[in-house]
Every structure is written in structure tokens, then in C-alpha cells.
């Protein structure tokens, strides 16, 4: 489904060049659940944005279903976002002035889904995440876990091929964290849509059948913690 080759992403911040991603190669199969793990600021979110057609690489190719998104026109990228990808953000990113149902509907607007069909599908998506009775509530009237459920419903309502989740449990307490990751897992198991989660949380990453690690912009299929030398203090005690 995805084939990333030699992907590099460079930013300029305050005149300094920052290499967010360096020479990343990655393949993701259709229906795969992949967790990309790494500490904050190592390039996880940048990689997810490239996978979701939210940005373009500085060099390299990001091929999705045979087409390179690095060179695709902006309109085509917009169409891909509207049809093929569903996003779940760490900070939920719900529209604060819209109700839960209207927030879910926003994902169907670019697909041109008409009023009554749109409302029905949004209600069904909310029911799937267990929020059928909270459809008329504003985000400010919902708990963090409920808001993330609304965001998951929004990511799934248009039946995308890939769900991309950026630290989906980063703003939640431990109990809610398990609840949300459980929900994502079960939805993935039911629908078999590709699911890519980036997280700094090893506990979350371990839930994925396949894991990759990112460190200083470089992607690895081996856990870098395995390579960390044992601290001298530890060795004397051990």
C-alpha cells in the first residue's frame, strides 16, 4: 500500500536547518497495524503527515497505491485526504463550535454527502464508538476520552483505507488510554483498514503486531533501547 524510499524532510526554523526525517525507507501493507515509536521531537509526527498527504518530503518518494504523493498536485492530495485517510490527533482537534455529530459530519462534507445521509452516517459512526447518546453535545461538554472517541468516529465515518493516529492517547489518563487503544484495536480488527499509530508510549506500541522505531529522524525496525549500553552503575550493582 505504502512504499517510502529515501524520504528526507528538512525544515528551516529561525535560520537553522532541522532534519526531521533522514533517508527513511518504509513499506506498509494493506490492512496492517503498525506502531511507530520514539521520543518526542524525533520526527514521528512528520512521518505521519507525509503518510497522510498533509505535507511533502524534501526528497525521496512516498508512494501510495502506486502513485508518488511527493509529486502529486495539491488538489489530488486533498482528494486523497478526503477519501483515503482518516486522522486521529493527540489534541482531538474537534471544532469547538460544532456538536459531536456535526464534527463527525465535517469529514463527509468534502465527499459531497448530502444532508440526511450525512447525518445518518455520522450518528452511526458515533454509535460505533459508543457515543450514540452524546451526538448533540459540544466538545466542551465531553470528557477527554469522549472527545477522542468523537475524533475516531470522524476518522472512520468516510470509511478510509488508512487510519493515521498521532499520539491518540497522549492527552488521556491511563484508564481512558487503554479504553481508546482498545477501541482502535477492535475497529481495526473489525474493518481491517490499515492503522498507523505514532506514539512515545511503549505500552501502546506493544499492542501493534508490527513496530518501527524512530530516532533523530532515522527509522529502524529494531528497538533502539536494545542497543543502549548498560549504565556503568548498573553493571557494578549487577
Amino acid at each position, binding site marked *: 500500500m505504502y512504499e517510502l524510499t529515501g524520504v528526507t524532510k528538512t525544515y528551516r526554523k529561525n535560520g537553522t536547518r532541522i532534519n526531521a526525517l533522514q533517508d527513511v525507507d518504509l513499506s506498509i501493507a494493506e490492512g496492517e497495524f503498525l506502531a511507530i515509536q520514539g521520543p518526542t521531537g524525533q520526527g514521528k509526527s512528520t512521518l505521519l503527515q507525509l503518510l497522510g498527504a498533509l505535507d511533502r518530503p524534501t526528497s525521496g518518494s512516498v508512494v501510495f497505491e502506486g502513485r508518488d504523493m511527493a509529486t502529486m498536485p495539491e488538489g489530488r492530495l486533498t482528494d486523497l485526504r478526503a477519501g483515503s485517510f482518516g486522522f486521529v490527533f493527540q489534541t482531538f482537534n474537534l471544532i469547538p*463550535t460544532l456538536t459531536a455529530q*456535526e464534527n463527525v459530519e465535517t469529514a463527509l462534507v468534502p*465527499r459531497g454527502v448530502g444532508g440526511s445521509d450525512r447525518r445518518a452516517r455520522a450518528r452511526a459512526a458515533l454509535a460505533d464508538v459508543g457515543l450514540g447518546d452524546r451526538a448533540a453535545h459540544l466538545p466542551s461538554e465531553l470528557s477527554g476520552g469522549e472527545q477522542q472517541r468523537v475524533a475516531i468516529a470522524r476518522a472512520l465515518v468516510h470509511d478510509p483505507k488508512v487510519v493515521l493516529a498521532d499520539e491518540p492517547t497522549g492527552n488521556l489518563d491511563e484508564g481512558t488510554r487503554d479504553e481508546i487503544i482498545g477501541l482502535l484495536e477492535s475497529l481495526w480488527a473489525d474493518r481491517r483498514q490499515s492503522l498507523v499509530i505514532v506514539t512515545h508510549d511503549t505500552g501502546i506500541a506493544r499492542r501493534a503486531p508490527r513496530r518501527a522505531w524512530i530516532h533523530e529522524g532515522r527509522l529502524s525496525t529494531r528497538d533502539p533501547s536494545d542497543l543502549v549500553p548498560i549504565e556503568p552503575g548498573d553493571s557494578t550493582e549487577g
Partner: protein
Amino acid sequence: MFFTYVARMLRRRRRQAVVVALGLALGIGLVVTVSAMSAGVRTAQDTVLHSLYGVATDVTVTQAAGGGSGGPARFGLNPRNEAQQGKSFSRDDVLQTPGLGTISQDQVSKVSDLSGVSAASGGLTLISIHAEGTFPDFGGSGSVSGQARSAPTATPSVAPIKVTSYSISGVDVTNSAVGAITPSQVTSGRYFTATETNSKVAVVDAGYAKQHELKVGSTITIGGTKYSVIGIATSAAGGQASNVYIPLARAQKLAGLTGKVNRIYVKASSASAIAAVKSEIQKALPKATVTTADDLAAQVSGSLASASSLASRLGTWLSVAALIAAFAVASLLTMSAVGRRIREFGTLKALGWRSRRVVGQVMGEAVVQGILGGVLGIGVGVGGAFLVSKLAPTLKATIGATGNSGPGPVGQALAAASNTVTVPLTAPLSASLFALAIGLALAGGILAGTLGGWRAARLRPAEALRRVE
């Protein structure tokens, strides 16, 4: 979804929407008020021009008083002998309008024969002055024989003299198409008939009639002769309008000016012919002063001219400044609001919303705020116009000073009776003003929306999502 989103935004971000709408409302309200005031000033100017000029008249012809003619009015108010000192007196005198020379009546037909002239008639404007009081008393009955008279006292004893005046126009009753008054101005009673060339009949100005309790059928004494009031007319307010209108021949007899007029009223065949008619008349009557409505408008002075100048200069600039300020406030507030919603728009773009849809959403919100501002602005404007109509002082217009009318109370009365018109300032509102307000509001909304939308759309989704709110 578009309308739901706009409605939710306006409802849940009410304070921001109200601030933007109020900013626009103040600017638009000021524009409506100033425009209404300008319209009021224009109406006042038209009223003045009509009243000074005659409803149907396009051009008037006058001639400046020649040397030795006219001069200060003389009433012989100094006591001729000591016996009159301290005695009361009452006198009437009919004088020609100061500053105006006479023109032979033959010239009227000469003017009416000129090309481009549709009608011309002669008129004679006069002032009737009534003076009453007590002859001055210089005190004592000093001897006049031989010795020098005792010096006059340091404080001269000026006896109280009451002077009242009214203006009279002699009207060519055989030509009702143009003149100091036309049949359309008569509101009750009737106009002169063509046979009343020498009849003792008068048409009286409505204001003067009210003041002196005159009605159709009343009699009025002019120069010792009684005239029957046959009609009451409006618009007689100043200079060329008079208090009383009588047949021309009677006016000529009153002033001892048989065969003379002091104004020729000319109607041009069309508005575009006025300038040509003016130059034709100037050629035919080189000594005459030929005045058109445009000339008259330029001569209007006094508070009306100040208001007109204020409305056209300061008013316009004030409106423009207020409007720019309102648009700037609306645009800046909208842009700042968009700035706070960058992540929201980044999310929408991540969901596959095209930039134009995001811009449309921002613009929709701004336009609704603009319309709200326009409606509030109309309210502010209506309030402002109402206040102007209620509180604004009456405007005075003075037209082309005619020179010295003579000193003292008689001169003042002559001057006052001649060329000043008082018009109340109004601020009329019209559908076109409301349309202007809504148009401006939409323009403000679209401007604010375009700037805000452009800001929202130009960011790439990844960049927008990285923004910290």
C-alpha cells in the same frame, strides 16, 4: 453544513461577532447620517434656490442701480420745526428693492424673442416700509435769534422708531408661465387672471398671511390703497420671493415707475439651453446682470453655504475615514479571529476540505457579520439622522449682498427684507441610503472575509496543525 457552521460560529463566538458587527455598524451609521445630512443640505439648497429664484425660472436679468439713483431711504424723520418735536408720527413708503436699477419694459419682449427662450416676463420688486414713532426731542425751546444755539446735549435723545417692512412684487399677469410667482404656487384661492392687469387684487405669501391673519377675501392696504386678497401662495421665502404679489401695472404706479421693471424672469426652452440663453441675453443687454441657478448657488452664503461646504468636504472625508476605520477594524478582527482558528482550519484541510471551501466558510461568517453590521448601521444612521433633524439649527442662506441699503433701522429693515432665507436642516433617509448601507456592509464583510480567508487558506495543513493556539 455551510449554514450550520456559520450559525454555530456566530452563536458560540457571539462576543467576537458583535464586536466586528458593531465596528462596521458605527462606520456605516456615520456614512448613512452624513449622507442623509448631505441630502438634507442639498434639499435646503434647492429650497433656497427655488424661493430666491422662482419655481419655473431658469435665468433672471437685473441691472445694478445707476449712480445717483436709489441710495439710502429717506423718511423725513427729522422734525421740521420745534412744534413737531416729541409728537408721534406714522408713515408708509414704497421703495424699489435696494441696489436694483430699472429696466425698460420693452426689453422684456426683446429677451423673449431671443433664441432658446421659452418665456420671459418682467417684474418689479418693491419694499413697503412702515415707520412709526415719536419725533426726536432735542430738549428746550432755545432761541434762534442772534446768538449761537446752545450746543446739543451729549446724549442725543433718539426717539423710539418702529420700522416694519414687507416686500411686494409686481407680476405680469398676462404671462403666467414664468415670474415671481406662478399659478402652481397658489395653495388656496386663485392666481391672477390675464384681465387683472390693473386690478386691486393681491396674492399673499402663506407665511406672511399667517403672520398677519390674512385669508382669501381679506383686504390689505398698500400705499394707502386697499387690495383684495385673491390667493395664498407658498414658497415666498426670500429675496426674489415677496410677501405680497400684485399686478405689475399697480406696482409700477405705486413706485412711480410706469413702464419700468427691475427683474426679467426667463425660462429657457431646455436645461441645456440655459448657458446659451445667458450669453444671448448678455449680448442683447450688455449692462444687465444675468444670473442662472448655478450662479445663484455659487453666491449662496451664510450657514447654508457653510453646511453645504461642511457636508461636501468634512462630511465626505469623515465618512470615508469612518468607513476605512470600520473596514480595518472588521478585517483585523476577522484576521485575528482566523489566526486563533488556524488549527481548526488546518484540521478541516486535513479532513480533505479544499482551500476555497475554507475561504468560503470564513467569508460566509464575515458576510453575515457584515450584514448584521449593516442592519445595526442603518439603525445607528436612522438614529443619527433623527438627531440631526431634531437638534440641527435652521440654516440661513444669504444671496449676493446688494450693497448699502442705508444706515439706521430703515436700512437694516431693507437689508433684512431682501436676501436672506431661513431653511430648517433635515436629514432625509431614502431606500438608496439603506441600499448603500447594506452594500457597504457586504463590501466590508467580503473584504474582511477575503483577508481572513486568504490567511486561513495559504497555510499548508501540516503547518497549520503544528500551530499552537
